[in-house]
């Protein structure tokens, strides 16, 4: 293992980097869509929401909490049958996306619920006082006001999902995490291990930077 570091990085780290990027982008996107949907239902059915519904809220609340209390590694293993049913295999980057979405959606749902609840309750009253429908109050008023907070939270969630992909790597997903462990740590190759750490640091900085840019634009 005495090859040129640059060549090492191009041949081993680069594909892993692209895999990680792929997993993060796809998993975050799907989780955001599902999480947004669940978050809105939680917001609406909460006891002082627009249409309180104790049973719907309770069920969603328990399910969200349950999934979130799984350690990610265990979640990956325990939903293998579901993963197989969806993507046909339990190994590889596509297979990793399933548990990533499983873990990511409830997480984002909570963040969205929180962002919506932070919107001035008075605005909901304003909406009602003009005779707006619930859908209009949610989308034209509450969600619209919550956009900056939602952007902040999704940035935060993206970084968290990036961290989680490293763990998904240990169950055959590939990506930067797996490469850092197998090629770096277990092979005593410091170049790869620390190289990947540096790449991850830069990646997190980039995600934050983009998030901040969008936030500034939206506020």
């Amino acid at each position, binding site marked *: 293992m005495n090859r040129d570091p640059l060549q090492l990085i191009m041949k081993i780290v680069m594909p892993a980097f692209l895999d990680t990027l792929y997993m993060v982008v796809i998993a975050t996107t799907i989780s955001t869509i599902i999480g947004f949907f669940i978050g809105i239902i939680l917001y609406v059915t909460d006891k002082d929401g627009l249409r309180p519904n104790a049973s719907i809220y309770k069920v969603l609340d328990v399910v969200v909490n349950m999934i979130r209390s799984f350690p990610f590694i265990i979640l990956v293993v325990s939903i293998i049958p579901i993963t197989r049913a969806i993507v046909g295999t339990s190994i590889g980057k596509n297979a990793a996306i399933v548990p990533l979405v499983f873990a990511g959606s409830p997480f984002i749902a909570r963040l969205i619920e929180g962002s919506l609840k932070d919107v*001035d309750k*008075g*605005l909901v*009253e*304003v909406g*009602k*006082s*003009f*005779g*707006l*429908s619930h859908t*209009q109050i949610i989308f*034209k*008023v509450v969600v*619209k*006001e919550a*956009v*900056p907070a939602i952007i902040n939270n999704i940035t935060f969630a993206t970084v968290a999902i990036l961290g989680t992909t490293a763990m998904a790597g240990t169950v055959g997903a590939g990506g930067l995490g797996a490469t850092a462990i197998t090629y770096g740590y277990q092979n005593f190759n410091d170049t790869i291990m620390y190289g990947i750490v540096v790449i991850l640091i830069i990646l997190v900085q980039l995600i934050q930077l983009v998030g901040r840019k969008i936030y500034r634009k*939206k*506020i």
Partner: protein
Amino acid sequence: MIEIKGLSKFYGDIKVLDDISLEIKEGEIYGLVGRSGAGKSTLLRCINRLEDFQSGSLKVDGVEVRDLEGTKLREFRKNIGMIFQNFSLMQRRSVYENIALPMECWGYNKDEIDKRVRELAEVVEITDKLSSKPRELSGGQQQRVAIARALSLNPKILLSDEATSALDPKTTDSILSLLKRINRNLGITIVIVAHQMSVIKRVCDKVSVLDKGKIALNGKVEDVFLHKQDEIREIFGGANKIALPSTGINIRIIVPEEGESNRIISKMAQILNVDFSIPVANIEQFKERTMALFVINVECENFNKVAEFLDYQNVTWEVVENE
């Protein structure tokens, strides 16, 4: 226009509104005043059904509000604008977009909206702020935007929930005169909730004073404020009862501040040639006119003379009981 009969509301076991009955006529400015927790805001919210109530009746233009559901309720609310203590503007929308929001949601077309927004901006005097964001405006300007928004759907009634409570006295004045102007020029009935007596006094025609969920006093603003001072003091606490002289007879005199009648005191001194002291002299500003309020203290033997004179001059007066 608004008719409330025997309205009661509970939160669990706690009765927050107790057998409220009152009537608000078209074109009036009606005040609901009381200490915090007296139920005045809750009562106001019953009018556009932001709050439900358990018994009694509340009719707006003959329509029983409790029976309204779904689209009917939404259509009904369209006719009632509302403004709030903390303005409740959308921070991410410009002033223009804030005013336009209700019309957008009710499917007005762009030209109509544009025309109406500019018209309203003129009414509330914020034409130069249309493209600003609410956070760039002062409190008074934000409330003006909220008023414009509340008027956007051409309501017949405007509900004002402590709309001036977060504003300084000067800004309060300007908002109150704006409300008065809206009432006069557009003929909109206004219901004002406030905890400051001064607000009610200056703009309202009639007032209900709420205390612990009940109506404690009711009537024309001038009557309530001029003749029920002791009751008001009892409800609101605040300024200590003014210590009136314990000897002689104390007479409260109320006269319009303008014109001849405000010289009644000096005239009385000249004509009757009696001695008296003036422990209280106040000017009270009401919606339509300003009244002067005096308490004079006369000796018992002069009382009949004075009473006769006051009656002859057609002055409103009453004896204030000594404690």
